[in-house]
């Protein structure tokens, strides 16, 4: 187990190094520092302004190969900084990126964590219900509803949610955020509802197929032969055996959570990581974008390792070696 963990973590680390190499290739080799500077100061800026921007932001060193001083290249700098979480300053307004991240993490977690938990519980519950009524009209209706829900763009859920709950019904404020714990549910109610409904169709449909796969198994027939009730079979036997695919899906959903938050946060002006990303797009702030990608992939890799470990918890047949 320990040996597996070490090897798994090492591979995760190598993957993150790969992400960093990809980022370097994209941001320093494909788009040169001159390109980045030109977008930051504008096409018509005089060359000396361009040069000053490049040297101010430390982009004026050799990119890959420095015969005088091997450590003093953009490549070495990029890896050193990212791995030591010293992200430097934003390309757009020179504020330290770490500070912005620290301020953004709280609101982001407020948006995503309750959504994540509620989405999982409601999604699994609804799909258990649909699978319970398999091969009836309720099941078929459920599938059609899921496809309908999946076919609506997330943008419409966002616009529609704000219009319905914020403008027509006036239940919640249209947008904004307040760090006061008592006010958080008031401000985040619409983003939560929007995120829940936007994800539900796909989730229920996926979990339903997982459950249907299990309901055909022999142990279900055995349980029924013993006289076990249908509801008990669903919750006790089917749900437990379906946990592995559900867990896998949960990890796959982690980056979607992140990306879903990018849209909702910027639209409802919640000052989280998603809003930072959108601001970075509009300001051509490449330094911040790099950091966001790095953080996102770190979260994904960590989540993957956690899933592998949790397999052993839900299924004693799985041994990590």
């Amino acid at each position, binding site marked *: 187990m320990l040996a597996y963990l070490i090897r798994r973590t090492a591979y995760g680390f190598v993957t993150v190094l790969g992400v960093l190499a990809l980022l370097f290739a994209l941001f320093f080799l494909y788009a040169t520092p001159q390109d980045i500077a030109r977008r930051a100061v504008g096409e018509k800026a005089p060359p000396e302004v361009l040069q000053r921007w490049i040297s101010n932001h430390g982009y004026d060193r050799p990119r890959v190969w420095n015969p005088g001083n091997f450590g003093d290249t953009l490549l070495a700098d990029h890896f050193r900084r990212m791995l030591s979480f010293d992200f430097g300053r934003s390309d757009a307004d020179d504020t330290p990126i770490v500070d912005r991240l620290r301020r953004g993490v709280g609101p982001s977690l407020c948006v995503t964590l309750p959504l994540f938990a509620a989405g999982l519980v409601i999604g699994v519950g609804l799909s258990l219900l649909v699978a319970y009524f398999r091969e009836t009209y309720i099941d078929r209706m459920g599938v059609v509803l899921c496809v309908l829900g999946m076919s609506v763009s997330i943008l419409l859920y966002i616009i529609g949610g704000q219009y319905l709950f914020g403008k027509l019904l006036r239940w919640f404020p249209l947008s904004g955020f307040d760090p006061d714990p008592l006010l958080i549910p008031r401000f985040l109610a619409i983003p939560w509802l929007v995120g829940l409904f936007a994800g539900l169709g796909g989730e229920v449909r996926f979990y339903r197929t997982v459950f249907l796969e299990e309901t055909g198994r022999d142990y279900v027939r055995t349980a029924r032969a013993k006289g076990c009730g249908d509801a008990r079979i669903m919750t006790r036997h089917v749900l437990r055996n379906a946990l592995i695919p559900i867990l896998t899906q949960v990890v796959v959903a982690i980056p979607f959570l992140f*990306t879903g938050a990018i849209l909702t946060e910027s639209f409802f002006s919640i000052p989280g990581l998603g809003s930072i990303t959108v601001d970075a797009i509009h300001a051509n702030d490449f330094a911040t974008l790099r950091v966001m990608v790095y953080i996102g992939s770190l979260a*994904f890799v960590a989540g993957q390792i956690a899933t592998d470990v949790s397999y052993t918890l839900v299924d004693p047949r799985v041994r990590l070696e």
Partner: protein
Amino acid sequence: MLEPHVWSNLLVLVLVSGAILAGLAARRSDLWRDAARGLVRRRPLALAVVGVYVGVALLDSVAWVGGGGADSPGADRLARHEARSAIDRLFPLDFGERSYSAPLAAVEFYGAAPLHHPGRHLLGTDILGRDVVHQTLKGARVALLIGGLTSLIAIPLALLFGVAAGYYGGRVDDAVFFVISVLASIPSLLLLIVLIMVMGRGSVQVCIALGITGWVGFCRLVRGETLKLRELDYVQAARALGAGDRRILLHHVVPNLLHLVVITFVLTFSGLVLSEATLSWLGIGIQGSWGQMIDQARDELSREPVVWWSLGAAATALFGLILAVNFVGDAVRDVLDPRTLRERR
């Protein structure tokens, strides 16, 4: 250097003749003929809807210079030099409206200035005075271009690397798997954003970025299937008969992956179009897409009375296409592959 509209016309020619050739080739194989029949039997309506979208998109891709339709001297000059598509020609060259107007209204939404074409805008006009029906119809071409062009990039890439990794194994497999896991560990929307920011905005760039993020999942699927196929009896038999790698790959492995290609193409199509809508929302989408119409319309709901027509038209068109493609996709999967892909979605 040819004009852009000539390229577009050529593309239509290539696509239509390619579709006819593929159809003729498929008629000769029982599997594909049965699949096509099953598809038509299961989902006639959804197929018809997709057909209408494809038709509009093709009509909008055929463009030529000249012709009339102009009703002012300035527009006449434009008409003689600018290529307009078959869809464009259904509408006057320049309506001459300047601002919002409600569906079938005779006056502008603000200030009530009289319109040049009162009562002719079925779904009103947008903020720049463009006809919403016209805009919506033109969006079909962009949507199909996103799905089609991206698949043209992603599917060959995934087939090449997936088959190589699954068939040869060893170092090749390790390398491909590493690339896949690196790309998969970046949240896809972030990767899309970064790729488009680095490459610059534009329709081709968006399709390339969608292709780079999109091939990963399919590559993994192809790799797994190839691993399985490699060990099957008929492949072993072919090898025992002295067939080389190339022959085995081209005659025994790849043909048995083709149904996966078709299924993946249909199933990922809707995801691609929805992704583009998201990118448009972030300001890095494709000019003229429904996503961009939705993006431009997002503040209009706060006006009083509500300006709903532009948003509603784009949203309905997008929803209709995605819904039809989703239904067709499920049917395609049921027809071509009842087993493998079931648990993956």
